[in-house]
């Protein structure tokens, strides 16, 4: 009887450890890759990186070190990112992993676009540069920026969408452009 209990306990612990390991792992898939065995730097084609809840894919990727404890990935071509806040499309960008966690990213495009997951309202932002900062829990739109929340449009050179409050604020005004607010009437 004791033997059976021990066996069941071991199986339970094994399943528990497997589940937690799988959840914490970064999954990386690609069509092909070139690795440098000495420096551990690598380049990838048609890459997809997943670390729940983040999934990011791109045509090309370059990383200086595959050690995800502190890694900066440079991406280019058809970038798609999805996380708990929404989905992004961009032409190029860089994403940071800190201690195996996605921490922040910067994306470029003409424009780049972030569609936010909002249960009651249609919200998206466009800009030539988008910065996603999970530490500060905001998305910042630079250079020809537009954020639309339902039928209200915000335009400027530096707009910030706060992910905690779902509010739009203006960033630095050094670019000399005032924020413009337009209410679109159907």
């Amino acid at each position, binding site marked *: 009887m004791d033997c059976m209990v021990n066996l069941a306990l071991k199986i339970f612990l094994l399943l528990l450890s497997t589940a937690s390991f799988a959840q914490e792992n970064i999954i990386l898939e690609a069509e092909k890759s070139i*690795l440098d065995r000495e420096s551990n730097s690598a380049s990838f084609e048609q890459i997809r990186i997943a670390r729940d809840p983040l999934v990011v894919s791109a045509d090309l990727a370059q990383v200086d070190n595959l050690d995800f404890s502190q890694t900066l990935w440079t991406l280019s071509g058809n970038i798609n990112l999805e996380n708990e806040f929404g989905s992004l499309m961009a032409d190029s960008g860089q994403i940071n992993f800190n201690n195996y966690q996605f921490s922040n990213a910067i994306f470029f495009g003409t424009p780049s676009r972030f569609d936010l997951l909002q249960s009651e309202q249609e919200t998206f932002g466009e800009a030539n540069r988008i910065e996603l900062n999970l530490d500060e829990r905001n998305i910042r739109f630079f250079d020809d920026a537009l954020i639309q929340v339902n039928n209200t449009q915000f335009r400027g050179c530096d707009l910030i969408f706060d992910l905690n409050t779902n509010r739009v604020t203006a960033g630095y005004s050094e670019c000399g452009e005032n924020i413009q607010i337009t209410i679109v009437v159907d």
Partner: protein
Amino acid sequence: MIPIVVDHFKLDNDLMLSGIINYIYKPQILGIAIILSLSIISIFNLNNTQNITPTNFLNQEIGHYLRNSTTKVMDEAGQLFYSIRAESIQVPPQGSMILESLTLEYLDSNLYALRGTLNNDSRLTLADITSQNSSQAQFITDNLEIDLVDGSANTSSEVRINFENGYFIANGLITNLGSNTIELINGLYGEFGP
């Protein structure tokens, strides 16, 4: 006295024995007859052992066998190009050499394989390979073809590359043993974790 009547037996060039025992009183006699026959064959076989002379050894008219050998190949400047250390090497009179438990040191690359065959055109085919460079990412694969002249190596077998914090699995590899880069092809999957 137990009579054994044998019609005839002969030893031909292929050491074939043919004989007929016509009449045997006890089963034990059959065993004695077999032992006697094998003794005759053994004597005949010993008499036909090919003599190994320095001439036919060097001309590789016969095969030979090496144990715990290290083969070193130098480049034109007299520098070590590569070396193969093997527990055993069978060198047949013709065809490929067969190597077992071998370590190939090629410039900065260091590969261990359970088996290998080396052709006359310097193409080395390895099976069950593990790269052994401790400071570099380790790769493991079932099969690897290496051109020892230019150092190029490839496989279409599954390749696993181990890192300190994760691994990659790919369905093919192209590399040059003289360089640090490995190209993983035909799709790859990897997991990294703390």
